[in-house]
């Protein structure tokens, strides 16, 4: 993990820096070396961050179950605790007490390591997440690149699970997952490059600070849409949940997992979805930006949580209302539609960014207009394609009395 600790250049009014300085002073006063203090503080910070994120998952699962139930006109969990709040805790207890079965012929160590890798890969993302002004695990200048790099570690865990289970459904599920994740990484990265261009940096806090006046979702709505869709596919949430499609391959790569090993995958998926929401917030919705942050940085944290939760609601909403797509549709959608679109948006934004440099109303208007133009162009292209498809269908549907000239049309 990065050696540079929590940023020191925050204003003295910053509460988080004050806390940091206070703890550091305390430890040094206890007789510890300054360098060792840094390391200790880093470790403590990482543990706290990871634990909190893990604990949040319990809340997330409850929220999702409740919301899904509402969407499906049910009530959802309501027996354990107030509003069924402790339902997930009960489920977790059940899973922990169950035995973790390791199938015969499985690759034992890899089998056990796989869920850990998945969860670790997701939690690792939070290291560079700017939670509030000055509150960030590590403000490295290649934050987005780090997100991409670490985010793909989850793929590795899924491969490991699929390989080690010694089960053909697991292997097939793993293959599907890898194919899906690797393909959707392309539009994901292309979409992420656009805010990088607009902000002029890959550092996460710089990106947030760049959205002080205008959120990037207004500058690059298409990029936001592409990012949202492809990150849904990365996570494997509905409608891209064909990696664990019960009707086709039973449960996908985690078919052989039981007990808390399965629970880790389960938790990892929910955290991942929440992480994606947080990322969307940071990159396109201005992160902790909001009224009053200048004077009271602590409000920024609540803004961040609020925006992330709204995004998470959207994710659940999509899951509850969209049907699952087929694997060929998944691939075709990626390579034939969303990747070219991302390329076009990327190029247009790059050119515009070069032409209209100074921030302000002009910049927003120009970028919005360009996005609208691209949407219109895409719409007409799709209509033309649909028309040609329909014509071809009509030609082939014709009875056997085919004219020889008809073939040349």
């Amino acid at each position, binding site marked *: 993990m*990065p*050696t540079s600790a929590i940023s020191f250049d925050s204003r003295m009014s910053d509460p988080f820096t004050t806390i940091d300085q206070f703890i550091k002073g305390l430890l040094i006063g206890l007789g510890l070396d300054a*360098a*060792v203090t840094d*390391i200790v503080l880093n470790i403590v910070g990482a543990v706290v961050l990871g634990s909190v994120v893990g604990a949040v998952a319990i809340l997330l699962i409850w929220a999702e179950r409740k919301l899904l139930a509402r969407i499906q006109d049910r009530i959802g969990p309501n027996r354990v605790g107030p509003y069924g709040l402790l339902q997930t805790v009960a489920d977790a207890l059940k899973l922990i007490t169950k035995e973790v079965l390791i199938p015969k012929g499985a*690759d034992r160590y*890899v089998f056990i390591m796989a869920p850990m890798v998945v969860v670790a890969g997701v939690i690792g993302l939070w290291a560079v997440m700017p939670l509030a002004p000055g509150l960030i695990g590590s403000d*490295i*200048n*290649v934050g987005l*690149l*780090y997100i*991409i*790099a*670490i985010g*793909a*570690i989850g*793929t*590795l865990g899924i*491969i*490991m699970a699929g*390989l080690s289970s010694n089960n053909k459904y697991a*292997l097939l599920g793993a293959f599907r997952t*890898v194919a899906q994740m*690797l393909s959707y990484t392309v539009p994901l990265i292309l979409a992420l490059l656009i805010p990088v261009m607009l902000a002029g940096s*890959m550092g996460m806090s710089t990106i947030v600070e760049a959205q002080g006046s205008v959120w990037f979702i207004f500058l690059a709505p298409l990029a936001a849409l592409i990012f949202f869709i492809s990150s849904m596919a990365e996570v494997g949430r509905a409608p891209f949940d064909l990696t664990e499609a019960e009707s086709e391959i039973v449960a996908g790569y985690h078919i052989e997992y039981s007990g808390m090993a399965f629970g880790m995958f389960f938790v990892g998926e929910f955290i991942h979805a929440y992480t994606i929401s947080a990322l969307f917030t940071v990159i396109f919705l201005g992160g902790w930006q909001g009224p009053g942050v200048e004077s009271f940085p602590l409000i920024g944290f609540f803004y961040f949580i609020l925006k992330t939760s709204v995004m998470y609601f959207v994710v659940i909403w999509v899951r509850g209302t969209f049907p699952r797509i087929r694997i060929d549709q998944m691939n075709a959608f990626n390579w034939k539609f969303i990747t070219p679109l991302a390329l076009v948006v990327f190029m247009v934004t790059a050119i515009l960014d070069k032409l209209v440099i100074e921030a302000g109303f002009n910049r927003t208007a120009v970028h919005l207009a360009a996005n609208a133009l691209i949407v219109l162009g895409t719409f007409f292209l799709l209509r033309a394609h649909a028309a040609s498809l329909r014509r071809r269908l009509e030609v082939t549907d014709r009875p056997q009395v085919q004219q020889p000239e008809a073939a040349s049309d």
Partner: protein
Amino acid sequence: MTVPQIIFLATAAVTLIAALMVVTVPRLVHAGLWLILALGGIAVLFILLENGFLAVVQVAIYIDAIAILIIIAVMLTRAVMSDTDPQINRMWLASALASLIIMAGLLVIVSQAPDASRGPLVDAEVGLDALGRALVDVDGFILPFEVASVLLVAALVGSIMVAMTPTRGD
């Protein structure tokens, strides 16, 4: 022993052991996983050398792309070579000898190098900005950068052509 030295030694040990496992374990899937570990160790060493950018790039390219590709290739070709077959050919002793000779030669050279025992420069950390500009600067490295991109496109097209399933007319 300072903290960086401890971190270096630990990482180096992990990396070397992982590398040795890569070339010796009979199960290729495990070799692939060990390879990931070794590459991750290299990434940590990159951070120790205070170039976070290259470390992240190392993870993104080697672990996310190359290693996963290798593991998939192993899975695709697993059927023909069972893990109980010998994975090392008959000349392994000669190979080891050759490798040792190379290593010995390199170590001899390292030991005679004048700057071998020096420490890192103080004014480190060339900014990411400078690197980015140098890569697209006409007076900088635009040629290697563009050549690399052309090479990647060529490799992409070439690998698709090579691995494409032959059509019926073929």
